[in-house]
């Protein structure tokens, strides 16, 4: 029952955080100079971040695995929207398409068999001190992430030449002062040189249609994939072949197959 209590506590706290955040955001509308954080993009980001954290916690703490899976799907969605805020359109939709649309559907497909509403749970046997270990581990990862983020944010990438802006970093974009789309990045492909970032298509600089301007990502990623990362890309096909063979072996009804094989094997041996 401890888990239920903590779940209630958590959902209460999450709801409170959400409401408090919304109130703050609304207040920022009246006194923008007092609450400079709340630009539209950042405000939305904060909201999504809170929701993402809540859904991630729900995924861990909910007792019904189907609900957990759904919380995870929700989390994918919030992340996808955060990617959209960072103008990573392709990444956002791939996230939804691959993770939410394909992988989690398969997960649900399996989980559904074991846990049905109205039936008693199969019950779970957590490893001893699992919660404690999990919390400690999560805190360690959090600490690491914090160090990494703050160290990273405080420095300016030195490989950029003097005049260049920090355009390539989506995070930098999110927290930069003006949340307007910047120059479109395209990879120019000159034979004999490594693909490098160049700002082209100056005419699309005006913030008319964010999605359109940044849709060039598909092309940019495609070109990278078929030049710089061609070898890994081709090796991935072998990896997928391996996965297919492995899945075929695992998916086979082995007990039946073995009986069958044994008969043919013995039969052919004695027949000769």
């Amino acid at each position, binding site marked *: 029952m401890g888990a239920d209590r903590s779940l209630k506590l958590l959902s209460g706290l999450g709801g409170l955080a959400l409401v408090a955040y919304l109130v703050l955001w609304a207040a920022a509308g009246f006194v923008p100079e007092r609450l400079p954080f709340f630009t539209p993009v950042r405000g939305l980001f904060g909201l999504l971040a809170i929701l993402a954290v809540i859904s991630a916690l729900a995924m861990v703490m909910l007792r019904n695995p189907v609900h957990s899976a759904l919380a995870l799907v929700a989390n994918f969605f919030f992340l996808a929207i955060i990617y959209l805020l960072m103008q990573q359109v392709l990444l956002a939709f791939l996230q939804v398409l691959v993770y939410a649309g394909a992988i989690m559907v398969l997960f649900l497909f399996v989980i559904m068999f074991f846990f049905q509403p109205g039936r008693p749970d199969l019950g779970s046997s957590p490893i001893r001190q699992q919660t404690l270990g999990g919390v400690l581990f999560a805190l360690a990862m959090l600490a*690491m992430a914090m*160090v*990494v983020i703050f*160290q*990273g944010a*405080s*420095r300016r*990438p*030195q*490989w950029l030449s003097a005049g260049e802006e920090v355009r390539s970093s989506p995070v930098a974009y999110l927290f930069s002062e003006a949340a307007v789309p910047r120059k479109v990045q395209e990879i120019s*492909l000159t*034979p*004999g*040189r*490594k693909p490098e970032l160049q700002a082209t298509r100056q005419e699309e600089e005006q913030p008319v249609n964010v999605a359109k301007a940044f849709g060039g990502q598909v*092309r940019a990623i495609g*070109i990278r994939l*078929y*030049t*710089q*990362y*061609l*070898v*890994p890309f*081709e*090796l*991935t096909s*072998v*990896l997928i*072949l*391996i*996965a297919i*063979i*492995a899945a*075929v*072996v*695992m998916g086979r009804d*082995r*007990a039946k*197959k*073995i009986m069958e*094989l*044994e008969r*043919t*094997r*013995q039969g*052919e*041996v004695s027949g*000769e």
Partner: protein
Amino acid sequence: MTAEAVLTVPVVHLREWWVAFAPGIVLLLAVITQLVLELTLPYVRTNRGAWVVPLISSLFVLWAGVEAVKQWGRYPTLPVVPERGSPVLAADNLTLLFVLLLLLILLMVTLMSHVFNVRIRLYEAEYYPLLFLSVFGMVTLAYSRDLVVTFIAIEMLSLPLYVLVGLNVDYLKSGEAALKYFLLGAFASGFLVMGIALLYGTFGTLNYQEMAAGTMTLNGPAFLMAGVALVLMGFAFKIALVPFHVWVPDVYQGSPSVVTGFMATGVKAALFYALISLFAQTMADYRSYWVLPVAAFGALTMVVGNLMAIPQTSLKRLLAYSSVVHAGYLTVGLVVPDRIAWGYIWFYLVAYALAVLGSFLIVSYLEPEGKGDVSLDDIRGLARTNPYAGYAMTIFMVSLAGLPISMGFFGKLFLFVEAVHAGWTWFVVLALVASVFSVYYYLKVIVAMFMDVKLVETEAYRKPSPSRLYDLVYLLTLVGTLIFGVVPGPVVELVREAFIRIPL
């Protein structure tokens, strides 16, 4: 897309792949041949024809070996044209030494598989393809000069293993082992990817050459520290360094014995080379970031592994812990900032592979029907009922313990001497104490075979060896362990020659 864009995309032609990566391509050809053979010839699926596929496959392994030897001293890279970017796959002589070791392991495992597989009713036509694909992953890992390829290669070598581990139908622990290995392996891959992302954040590139050439400017040392820690965790899981070794005994015990032998040797060899090429070679300028963690892992591994190995009564579990401990010894070579020490890691791995594969060869045919494991009780009096197996096992144990007149002795000697020269005295002392302790449990096996009397005898205990191919592997492992235990000179010369001409 315009016409120009379509045509300017540079295609890596098959010929370039062949020039740079011939051993790997040969392994893929072998996989295709195996699949076609199993599909088209019903004879190879009978008990009598079970030798056909392994024999033909071992020819492919020899071919791959020849291709690897041909690359000696040539330093092939892919992309071949340097203007097209830094090498993603490349091979120096050390790479080729490791590739040859991997191929040797594959050859022996292939030869000893078929009789054993018939015995444990492992009839899957996909057994050999999975084995070869796993080695393909290992070879790719050895050639890899890019973190993306490294990750893909590690997945390629792991995925077939997850399946191979669970193939012993008569042994309940087999399925359990497969599940454990898969879940923990997936977890470790997560660490690895996260670490790779942070390394990318540090260096702004995924390519080893660019990482080594560029200075760490993009982000602070925290990025690098976190990245190294996570990547190291991912590797430590696969190599079974101590806090991440918990899966080893269960998985090694549960999987079919031949597969266990393969895992204990091949994975370790491939990943140690990956450690060498990523940390020792590429990140040589950032030694302070990774040397101490590696040494700490190693020290912990030696201590804990030995303590855990002492009470074991199952031979497979004992060998599992022994493999953990050996991973600890190998880290001694990793922390030495000298190229020759990496060569000695290779030497050690050869000794280790011969001894371990030999022991698992014996384990695989001593296994009582449907049991999947051999306990120390089972091998009591083996030296009398089956002297071949008994004496061979003794030699392998001696080699694993690192006692003289075995290759294992020289392996340890070279590594430790190098480490002392480099100033790692405390580490070497610890390793020496650990190996003294380890003699106890290796001796336990020998004592059981020579001193005790076997009460119940089965057929396997009297038969010297069930097949000619088995004999061949016997011969290889025994002769290798003994001859290079007396005259290690030629192998050492090979290692030295590998470093005579260094690229760049």
